[in-house]
């Protein structure tokens, strides 16, 4: 028969094991999302690690394991957007990159770089909406839940974000622009 201490230890071990599995499965995806949100791998890793640290601290209190991805998205996006408002690490609002020429269909690498560069020129909150919708694949309601705003705001931010992308990518966005 096991005592309460032994049971607690086993619960702790099981929880740590679960967290380790989640970390292994999701680390790179979270880093990738963070990178598109902030445009810099060092900061992306800082944000991703901080989000995992926060998750680890709350792990025992998050009972719905299906909600973990949403929890991580919310933590990550809010951290990146809030950070961009901080005066000591405000993103440089310098000249946007030169508009890209229409990419050669075979030049996939250039297209990818152009998209990443163009995202850096999009205001942080609009960029977050674009990343949530088109990288994470969330619908309008899902993005609104992550950002804590209305669906109308998500729609308008999507439109503004795509317009900002278009200002940088120029004709290269035409093939990517969503309807409506």
């Amino acid at each position, binding site marked *: 028969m096991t005592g309460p201490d032994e049971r607690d230890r086993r619960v702790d071990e099981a929880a*740590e094991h679960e*967290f*380790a599995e989640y*970390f*292994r499965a999701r*680390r*790179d995806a979270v*880093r*990738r999302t963070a*990178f*598109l949100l902030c445009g810099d*791998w*060092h900061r992306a*890793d*800082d*944000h*991703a*690690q*901080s*989000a*995992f*640290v*926060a998750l*680890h*601290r709350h792990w025992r209190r998050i009972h719905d394991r299906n909600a973990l991805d949403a929890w991580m998205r*919310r*933590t*990550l996006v*809010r*951290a990146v957007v*809030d*950070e961009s*408002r*901080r*005066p*000591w*690490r*405000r993103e440089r609002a310098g000249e946007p990159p030169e508009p890209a020429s229409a990419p050669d269909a075979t030049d*996939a690498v250039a*297209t*990818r770089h152009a*998209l*990443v560069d163009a*995202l850096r020129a999009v205001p942080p909150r609009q960029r977050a909406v*674009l*990343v949530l*919708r*088109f*990288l994470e*694949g969330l619908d309008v309601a899902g993005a609104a839940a992550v950002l*804590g*705003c*209305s669906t109308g*705001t998500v729609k308008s931010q999507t439109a503004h974000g795509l317009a900002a992308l278009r200002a940088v990518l120029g004709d290269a966005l035409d*093939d*990517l*622009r*969503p*309807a*409506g």
Partner: protein
Amino acid sequence: MPMDEKRLTEAFRAAVPDESVPPASFDHADVVRTSRRVTARRRAALAGGGLAVLAVVGIGVAVLPGSAGGGGSSVAAPAAAPQAPPAAAPQSADGAPGVAAEDAREAAAAPAPPLGPGTGECADRQDPALRAIVEQALPEVAGAPEAAVTLECRPGGERGLALHVVDAGVAGLLTVDYLPPGTAPGSPDPDTERTTAPTASGGTVTVTARSDEPGALPPYGQRVEELAGFLAPRL
């Protein structure tokens, strides 16, 4: 999903191919170690806060016997005690009741040493010392949840606090930033209410209120100036 949105999704997902992803700068052990360190520090801070409360209560207990003698000024002292800086409390709790009352009055009247720059270490972005002062000025936000927590390195000793707040039914973010001497704040975001003030330590404090909903008045937007005015001599 409309065809164009599908194409956008494919473009976003292809934007960071596996071969372009650098090795991660952290692993599972780093996360667990940091998590435990943060938790231990939070517990230590809570324990320290408890001691400070006990010390302040001690002032009140020391002062109350004086008030029994009918001294009008002693009645005011316990009310003033919570305003006294925590650092002054142990000194005030030492002497006889009359002396303690005098100390408490002095502590309440004399400004605390300005908080000044932080340590510069990589730490919780939410600054507990800054939060304690903010809550003195704005007790309504005492229970407000902190915005998403990250760890940040602040080589200049910057301090920061960001709270999710609700004021008159309007939700938003209340942000307080302390910048050390020589650091200038950036330009304010649109749709925010922001005030900047020089602080006693030569730095700058900015208080910013932003509504979650575009167009809505920011929560506590009418009080950012008052809050900055309260914080400036204390930072």
